[in-house]
Structures are given as C-alpha cells and as structure tokens.
C-alpha cells in the first residue's frame, strides 16, 4: 500500500514539474499592481479626448507592459478569436518599475465602440457595436518578464437621453 503512496507522490511531482517546464508564459509571483483610471465609465465620444488610462507598478525597469482586456463568455469583439484577449494599450516601464498607458483613439474606436471604417479612413460610428455594459477583467503583462497585474473596468449603461 505504502509503495502505491510513493508512486502517487512521484506522479504528482512529475506532472507538476512537467507543467512548469512546458509553461509557455512565465508565471511570476510578484507585487505588480494595476490601476484603471477611471475604473467605471460609460462609452461616449469623450473617451477619444480623455481616454482610459492604465497605471502599473512592480514591473521590470526597461520592459514593455501590454494591457489587455479579458472577454467574458458570451461577449465577442470583431476580429478577436474566442479565448483571445484584446490589446488595449501599451507602455514603457520606467526605472522604478512603473508605467502609464493610455488607450489610443484607434483602440477606443476599434475595441470599445467596435466601429467600422470608411474608405476615407474615418470611423463610421453608425455601424458601431459598443461593448455591452458589465465588469471586464484587465490584465497588464510585462514583456519579457511575464509579470502580471490585474484590475477591472466597469462599463456602465449609457446615461438616458434627456429631452430638450
């Protein structure tokens, strides 16, 4: 019986080591942190002028941080395959391990509003399919360190139109 216990320990150890060995993305336990500013917003054209920002700390100095949105089940974004995250912004990590990344207008239009584009390279907001309201997980990953930090962004319901 004891022999089987040892066998079990061996299997568990082997599987654990294989998982670590095969892991494509570095899993780094660290103190990286992420803040989304603002962490709650309704989708409006104001986001082009004042885009959502991401502030991170605890990353490796000199690396690049890429900020992605994890799509909840049932939410689809044009051109993004199921299970894939949506790249929202990126930033250079400074010598203190911090970064600030703003969403570019193309990112806000492509991923929040899911706009189409005209042949004159203008966004066609009439064809837009904005993300549904809800809470979205945001992940920042340091490249190449693999350090990650998470936060959330809540997309609010649009304010009701006031009658003039």
């Amino acid at each position, binding site marked *: 019986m*004891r*022999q089987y216990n*040892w*066998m079990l*320990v*061996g*299997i568990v*150890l*082997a599987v*654990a*080591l*294989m998982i*670590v*060995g*095969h892991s*494509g*993305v570095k899993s780094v336990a660290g103190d990286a942190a992420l803040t989304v500013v603002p962490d709650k917003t309704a989708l409006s054209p104001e986001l082009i002028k004042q885009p959502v920002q991401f502030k991170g700390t605890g990353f490796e100095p000199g690396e*690049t941080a*890429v*900020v*992605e949105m994890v799509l909840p089940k049932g939410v689809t974004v*044009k*051109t993004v395959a199921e299970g*894939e*995250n*949506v*790249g*929202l*912004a*990126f930033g250079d990590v400074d010598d203190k391990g911090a970064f600030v990344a703003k*969403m*570019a207008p*193309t*990112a806000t239009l*492509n*991923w929040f509003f899911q706009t*189409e*584009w005209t*042949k*004159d*390279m*203008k966004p066609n907001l009439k064809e837009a399919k904005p993300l549904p309201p809800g809470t979205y997980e945001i992940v920042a*990953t340091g*490249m*190449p360190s693999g350090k990650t930090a998470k936060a959330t962004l809540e997309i609010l319901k649009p304010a009701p139109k006031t009658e003039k």
Partner: protein
Amino acid sequence: MRRDRIRWLLVWLAFALLGCVSPLTSAQAIAKEVAFLDLSDFTGPVAGLTVPASSGLEDYIKSVNEKGGVEGVKIKYIGVDTRYDVARTISAFKRYARDPQVVAMGICSTPAGKMLQRLTREQPIVCTVPGDGEFQAHLGNFFTWGPTYQDAFAATIDWVLKDWKEKGKEGDPSIAVLSWDNAYGREMLRGGKEYAEKKGVKVLKSELFPTGTLKYDIYLSRLAEAGANYVYVGGVDPTQTNIMRDATRLGLTKDIKFISDYWGPTALGTSLHPEALEGMVVVSFFLRGEDAQNNEMMKKFWTTYRKRPMKEMNGGYAIGLGLGMSLEAAIKDAIKRVGPDKLTRDEIYKSYQNITGLDRQGVVGPVAYAPKVRRASDVVKFYVVKSGKIIPITDWVEAPNAVALHKWE
C-alpha cells in the same frame, strides 16, 4: 521496501526531468510544419492596402503546401487582424511570442515595427515591414518589403531630373513632400533629402497633415506659393486621390507634377476616380496596373485562389507573392543547412540573409537581403495614370541607397 520507494521516485523524477527539458527541445527541433504570423489589417483604415498583400502571401503559402511543402515542410499561415492598432499588434505578438512553430512574422505599421524591434531584440525573429529605412540603418531582424522609403524618394529624384531635362527646363527643380503627419510621413527625407541636395534638387518645407484629412487646399496652396515644381505625395490611397482632386480643382496640376509613393493609386483607385488621378506618377517596387494585369504569375495565382475577375485584382497582391517567394527560399536554405527538424527562428533569420539575388518572377525585384542588407530589392518602376489606367513609363530602375546618406543616431 525502501529500495522500491527509491526506485519509483527515481523513475518518476526521470520522467519529470524529461518534461522539463522538452520545451527546450521543441524550441530547437520543430515538427515538419512552421508558421508565418501575419499581423495585418484585414479591416480598419488601411485595409485597402494590406488585404491584397496578405492575400498574395496566403495564396503563395497555399501553393507551396499543395506541392507538398518546402522539402516536405508545410507552412502554416496565421493571419491576425490588427485593425491599424499598435496595442492589438503587440498583444497578438505576445500570444505567439513563445510559440516555436512561428519562425517568421510580418507587420504593416511603422509605429508597431518600432515597438516590436525592441521586444524581439533578445530573441530575434524575422519580421517583414513596409519600408522604414531605420531597419536598414540599424541592422537587425526587420526586413523591408521593397527598397526603403528614402531609396524610393532617391529614385524619384533621378526621375525628376530626367523629366526636367526632357522638358527643356532651366535651373534646378524643386520638390516638396506632402504626406501624413507621423513617422512614416517623415521617413523618406531621412536620407532622401541628402540625396536630393547632392543631385542639385531643392527640397522645400514638407506639408504634413493628419490621417483622415479630406480637404487639402491649404497645404496645396502653400506648396504652390513656395514654388514647388514636383510634389511627392505620401499616405495610403484614397489620400492621393483626394489630393489630386483638390489639386486639379485649384488648377495646380498644369505647373506641378505630382508623384505618389508606394501606397498611391492602384487599379481599384483608378477605376473609382480616374479623372482625379489623371497624370499622377507613381513609384512602385511591385507591379501594378497594366503590368500586374498582364503578369502570368499574378494571373495564375489570382484566378486559382481568389477565383475573381482579373480587373478586381489590386497590384498590392504582388507584394504578398514576393514575400511568399522569399519565405519559401529562406526555409529551403535553412533546410539545406540544418535539416528539416531544426528550423528555428535563428536559422530562418540566418537564411533570410542567404537568399540574395533570388529571382521573383518579375512581380517584384530580385531579393537584395544579405548580411548587411535589409531592403528586399534595389529596383523600382515608374507608372503614370492615364485615362483610368496605370501605365508603366520606365522599366525597373535602380533605387539608390539613400539610407547610407543620413546621419542616424
């Protein structure tokens, strides 16, 4: 009993060690399929340019696989729609960054190229990019699609001098750039300006405008007042079409010759707005217009894989075929050197520098890539838009190395 325990433990530790080692092994020795990651814009503002190029590449890869692959090694085409967004490009790159099957990749944006250059510095992977001269100035793993933007500008200077002389004009001609206000819009003068001045062509102050601009009167009027004889137009069509529309309306096309860079009118643009583009000259590293329509290879690929009428083929399709031929040749070279089971990113990178002189059936110039060359070719052709058609006005001509004239940081 104790011996049994130790034996079991040793057996399982051996398995575990194999498990740890195998990622290294798989990164170095890949199965008989390699992948090309195409981070392109299938939708979005510049899709009109990038879709034909990506289609050409995808079709060329299909043709290679249908013949059994390169010496038995199949190529997987992975296309990701980046929608002209750098964050999306980096995010997509991250997804495949550690996939050893992906041995080369392509992007279509200059700003994304500058970011990815940093991210791939330590683990180089071949990355094909449109035409930024910086990649020739600072040798690395980025390979341009054709001669760099400044080389094309230098070739244009040679054409301008010939045109000026043929028209019997006296004195020195002047030229100005009218382009997007971004890194791409300035790139052609980093070496191109030095070449022009060396040849006695005066370079006037550029007029740069935001992408998506629809009216160009103010920029055109300023260029006319500055005395421009030639205007070199950057941007992706319909930018050129809109500029020519306004220039014609302002009566400027009589005295100023407008020349477009690579991303100007194609067969599609001229079919939509032939009158606006009449007389515009285009410098190109790939066949376009009548040349493209009559090229046997392009006809064969377009009708076989796209199954559409030839009149719908955009000249940009040639870019993809050219990229495909280079990729196939590099894989073939790597197989010859290290065998089909060791096609790593490093080996493909070395092989891209080994395919110098590869003939690409005239759809683009012969390959110029070499240990110290990252430009795809050394030649361009000039075309003119006439009665809605894009007609060649030169054969392939040399695109001088203007990158070397610039003082790079």
